[in-house]
């Protein structure tokens, strides 16, 4: 915990001793004193943030790896290194494999769904001038609405007898289902809720992307005879949205990987393990079953996935900057 403090105080000490000892010429020493004063000021200003970054991010990060590689349990006074035993246990566990598989399937439903619907609404909103902020507001609303509360609303909507979904399906003669209690539908229903929540977010990112397309390109397309909306869409708009689309894919995938609220409120991973996903497994093993080593190993797996996705995203953002 004293890492960052030691760091800043060490540089303080160095600064005072050095400025005391060395004084070759008055001009040089005053310049050096200014440099040291600036460094001292910088580390003092950054000090609290550095301290908390270590206490709340880096030390816990190391802690997760330590717990994952040892047999430590809550309340234990000692621990011993067990190598990859926790990881072997995790990957041998049918429950975890199902959870990982479900998460991948879930992300594979949510990402294309969110991407296509977000892009469509963005294109439609941009294609005309009227009511833009009205449509944007409506489609964006779910993104900031408290998901726990909205999950409860979705549960009522999906209620097998009194829910609007089944009533509507029955009225037009389609088969109904007990959406959240059926292992064939539970995961897909959660994915639909996720798409509902995030499509407005994708839309906003696409709207920003559309705004950054230079007008010249449309003028050039006009000269080339692409005067129909669809022509412009295919020759200019969609190709220019390539980088933004990749960005949206990663951002939405990250959010989908981190889905927790709907699982906790609506299905608790059930029926069976049908809608169990990584973050819920992490929560349940760590804090309900107090299965510490297992939970930490799941956290490491989860982190590996998230870091990989984020690094891809950073790569893409760099490339986007190069293009401009």
């Amino acid at each position, binding site marked *: 915990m004293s890492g960052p403090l030691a760091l800043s105080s060490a540089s303080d000490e160095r600064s005072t001793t050095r400025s005391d000892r060395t004084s070759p010429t008055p001009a040089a020493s005053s310049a050096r004193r200014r440099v040291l004063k600036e460094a001292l000021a910088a580390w003092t200003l*950054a000090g609290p943030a550095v301290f908390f970054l270590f206490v709340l991010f880096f030390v816990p990060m190391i802690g997760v790896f330590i717990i994952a590689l040892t047999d430590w349990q809550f309340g234990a006074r000692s621990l011993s290194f067990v190598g990859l035993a926790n990881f072997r246990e995790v990957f041998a566990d049918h429950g975890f494999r199902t959870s990982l598989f479900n998460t991948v399937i879930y992300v594979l439903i949510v990402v294309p769904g969110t991407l296509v619907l977000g892009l469509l609404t963005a294109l439609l909103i941009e294609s005309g001038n009227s009511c833009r902020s009205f449509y944007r*507001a409506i489609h964006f609303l779910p993104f900031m609405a408290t998901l*726990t509360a909205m999950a409860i*609303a979705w549960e009522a909507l999906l209620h097998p007898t009194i829910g609007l979904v089944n009533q509507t399906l029955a009225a037009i003669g389609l088969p109904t289902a007990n959406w959240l209690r059926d292992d064939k539908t539970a995961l897909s229903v959660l994915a639909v809720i996720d798409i509902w929540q995030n499509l407005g977010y994708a839309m906003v990112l696409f709207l920003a992307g559309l705004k950054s397309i230079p007008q010249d390109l449309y003028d050039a397309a006009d000269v080339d005879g692409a005067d129909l909306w669809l022509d412009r869409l295919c020759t200019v708009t969609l190709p220019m949205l390539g980088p933004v689309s990749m960005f949206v894919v990663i951002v939405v995938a990250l959010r989908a990987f981190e889905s927790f609220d709907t699982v906790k409120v609506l299905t608790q991973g059930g029926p069976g393990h049908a809608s169990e996903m990584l973050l819920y497994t992490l929560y349940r093993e760590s804090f309900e079953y107090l299965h510490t080593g297992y939970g930490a190993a799941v956290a490491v797996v989860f982190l590996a996935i998230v870091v990989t996705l984020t690094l891809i995203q950073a790569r893409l953002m760099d490339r986007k900057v190069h293009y401009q």
Partner: protein
Amino acid sequence: MSASTSTPHLPAYAAILRHAVLLVTGALVLIPFVWMVSLSVKPPGEIFRAHFSLWPSQFYGVENYTKALTEAPLLRYMGNGLIVCTLILGLQIIVCAPCAYALAKLRFAGRDLLHGLVLIGLLLPHQVLSLPLFILCYQLGILNTYAALVFPYVVSPFGIFLFRQFFKAIPDDVVHAARLDGLSELAIIWRIMVPMALPAVIAFSIFSVVGHWNDLFWPLIAVRDQSLMPPPLGIMAFKNEEAGNDYGPLMAASTLVVLPLVIAFLAAQKWFVEGLAKGAVK
């Protein structure tokens, strides 16, 4: 500027089609909200009647909302949410702005290293750290207090990142002039940089408050007492108590939890969209 400036007028049929599609998708998106509010003003008899109507024949809103506010300490939950979000945001700005200023405007050994640490922090999802953070809060003896809800979030790598970007865009001459006027570095940060970077502060505030008002994961781990629960945890507890049978009050409670952010969003839509879109890097 955009695709539409080159096509200022869609043909009439296309314009109508645009409105038609957007109204349909918009209506679909709004269904959960409408259903929630509709159930929140219906008496139990009408909720469980197997036919559909949007507005109840007998308005039961007063009863449902009263029940939501009295049977669950809903106002308490929302007060907790307000306290926690305010404390987190205030501390985040106090901790992050000076660090961002140092990174943006001061030259010092280790600056690139520090910036690298901030970017690594940006990469780490908080849920992964929940187990050690839980142990840390336990060691500090703050589990099941407001402090446990606030402490893990007092520094925000995203806040440092965003403030640094905005501070960098402020000309160095402004800083030099302020120093010549005799302002201390802290005075430069709070009286000049932060006010000049107000859009960043607002964007970050929205990002932070929306995130923490809506968070279920950490409060679920950090607090047990009903009197400390923020809205998402509180409403989940209410749902479990009611066993999901008393839909009217439950929907009323949900509506009340969602309402503050929805009102704020409708009042300052542009800021919300911008603030949350910026959060995409997080």
